[in-house]
């Protein structure tokens, strides 16, 4: 499909209706074994993230250790899906994680603003992949998008995708800067059209970050493309998903929009830093019947 056909297919979005649908997901009451299953699933979908100017190699090493050893006392725990870092930290993260199954994801392409020459952004992407990044989280040029230059946005994604080689490409739309749900839908359609493996809501540096409304619109874009072309694309809400309750609501939304096929870390991720410990606390509560102090959960 051409870009113009993709854009012509981009449907209108009624934000009132979207909010109502979201409210309905939030009335689902997840209890007992379905709750336990959801908690573990959510844990396995986390991209454990540290994206700060003050990050050091030691900090990244500690995070990688945490990624592999979530809790000493709990049996049958999954690991998180990936550790998400800046390109400079890819090497050390990859050393720590080796080939344990936890992937290394790097934010590239002049994260978080994307305000740089495309050639530099591509060089950064290639460098991160060369250092061992298995996943690349790129940002789109929101300014260009808002100016209506959809071709530019398409081309930059295509170019970064090519630079990724074998690495999976997550395309960050930074929905907090797109303002309307129709823009979110349009940007999702463009990203999927241009070859994204995942579409992702936010960098975490702009408010609002992930919301259920935005995520629903993106999931619906993924679903429509799947049903019309057979192409399977993953989804990553990032930023603001800080506790189990919210995470489970996202899973409900995911299940009722895309079905069980997407309930896997291969196709759904949470970009989050504090979510893991809350999930662990809830898992302990589910199995022991009592809440433990947060002091029993390590903060890295």
């Amino acid at each position, binding site marked *: 499909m051409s870009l113009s056909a993709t854009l012509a297919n981009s449907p209108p979005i009624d934000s009132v209706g979207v909010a109502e649908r979201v409210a309905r997901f939030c009335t689902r*009451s997840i209890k007992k074994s379905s709750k336990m299953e959801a908690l573990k699933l959510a844990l396995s979908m986390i991209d454990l993230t540290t994206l700060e100017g003050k990050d050091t190699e030691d900090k990244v090493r500690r995070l990688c250790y945490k990624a592999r050893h979530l809790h000493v006392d709990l049996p049958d725990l999954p690991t998180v899906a990936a550790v998400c870092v800046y390109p400079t930290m890819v090497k050390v993260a990859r050393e720590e994680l080796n080939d344990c199954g936890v992937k290394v994801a790097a934010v590239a392409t002049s994260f978080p603003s994307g305000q740089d020459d495309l050639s530099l952004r591509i060089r950064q992407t290639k460098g991160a992949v060369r250092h061992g990044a298995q996943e690349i989280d790129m940002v789109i040029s929101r300014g260009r998008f808002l100016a209506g230059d959809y071709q530019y946005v398409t081309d930059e994604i295509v170019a970064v995708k090519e630079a990724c080689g074998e690495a999976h490409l997550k395309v960050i739309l930074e929905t907090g800067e797109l303002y309307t749900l129709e823009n979110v839908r349009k940007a999702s359609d463009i990203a999927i059209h241009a070859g994204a493996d995942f579409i992702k809501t936010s960098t975490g540096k702009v408010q609002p970050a992930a919301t259920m409304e935005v995520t629903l619109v993106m999931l619906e874009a993924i679903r429509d493309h799947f049903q019309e072309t057979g192409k399977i694309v993953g989804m990553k809400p990032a930023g603001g998903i800080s506790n189990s309750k919210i995470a489970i609501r996202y899973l409900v939304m995911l299940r009722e929009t895309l079905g*069980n*096929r997407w*309930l896997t870390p291969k196709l759904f991720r949470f970009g989050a830093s504090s979510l893991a410990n809350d999930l662990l606390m809830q898992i302990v509560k589910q199995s022991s019947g009592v809440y433990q102090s947060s002091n029993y959960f390590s903060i890295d």
Partner: protein
Amino acid sequence: MAKKHSNKLDFDTGWHYDPAPESPELAKLKDSYDLFIDGKFVKPTSGKYFDTTSPSSQKILAKVAEADKRDVAKAVTAARKAYEGTWSRLRPSERGKYLFRIARVIQERSRELAVTESLDGGKPIRESRDIDLPLVAAHFFYHAGWADKLSYAFPGRKVGPLGVAGQIIPWNFPLLMAAWKIAPALATGNTVVIKPAETTPLTSLKLAEILQEVDLPPGVVNILTGAGSTGECIVRHPDVDKIAFTGSTEVGKLIRKTLAGTDKRLTLELGGKAANIVFEDAALDQAVEGIVNGIFFNQGHVCCAGSRLLVQESISEKLVRKLKDRMETLVVGDPLDKNTDIGAINSKEQLKKIQGYLKVGQREGAEIFQTSCPLPKRGNWCPPTLFLNASQSHRISQEEIFGPVLAIQTFRTVDEAIEKANNTPFGLSGGVWTDKGAKAFHVSERIKAGVVWNNTFNKFDPASPFGGYKESGFGREGGRHGLEAYLNISETGGNR
């Protein structure tokens, strides 16, 4: 166009929601309920009681008194006495205070009332908790505010109450319909004799307890349980000034015949066969949500349900696919489970009627689609159902089914959509889905129905008048318009 793949979404396997039921104990039911006359619970003159059962578990919930002609006479006498002696003489602001009090106690006891409603009527607790009960309280609050402002509602005219109002309500929104009837009647200074439906009397009887709790003067509201014959006695009683009925068109016609030649005032809110019109430029995923709310809300036991879907041909395939996917996620089952989307069909008779239409639809040649959701063994259940390729002359497109059954037709032009939407003896509601404002207004103005929703469906508010065209009845409930049904409005003043 892209090549069409048959890429099905999987909603059957994997992660499911465990049951999360409310406890039936929360309903705090008594074994037996008497009639509520003159502020007291009294035994029926005949000594007869009938069982009210749960449409889901089939268990008997309580015994309920059956009122006959003699009980109706007692109730009307009590209502007349209360009207002459206290209620019509009370300062309007005092009437308002009683209504405020009722509203607040309803809020306090809303969980108990919601559980009772779901137990007795079969609707999912999500709806009774999140829709019915908040609206019940809202109706009392809203009309409490009107009680001392009636002259502002009709500037330059004199208003006064009618007297004793006889009210008969259906089983689909038992407590909400009681609120729709009682709140405006009391706010305007009338007194009430009301009969809840035979299959769903319990929340009305709990309302009687609440009326006692707030010290409403005796006789202002009398609640008589019973079947159709009890209702008939109310309609025929010579000392009733006004009849308000919500229910089937068939019974509505009978009532109107009975009242011909009398000076009783009448409002009727009857059946419907509303069309939800979806244009190709609509926000489709949100339209799907509206269609689902339109027809599967309260198992389709909704007089204003969007039971016909008119979809523009260019998007019909896509829309139906989305609709089917959405339906696969609907949970049918225990009304008390917080995850239930579609509860039990209210009665065996109603289930039989719906099943009859399922046969009729297939015989007429429409293509049936039902979801694969497992149904409980005991109880009255009907999975959400679509009839594809329905035609305007099919009975399933013309007659009110009052169940979770949607007849889908396509159209090509705006005019065709309007014509099909209006080509029905009913005219209660309608839905228009388009992203284009001009089209929304153009079509909405031409749909002959009491309420037309644009890009939404089944939204209710006490400030918004509700009622029908044609065989859907006459008179409005809610809003300023709804007050008229309970008032004498004249240049010279009413009864007082």
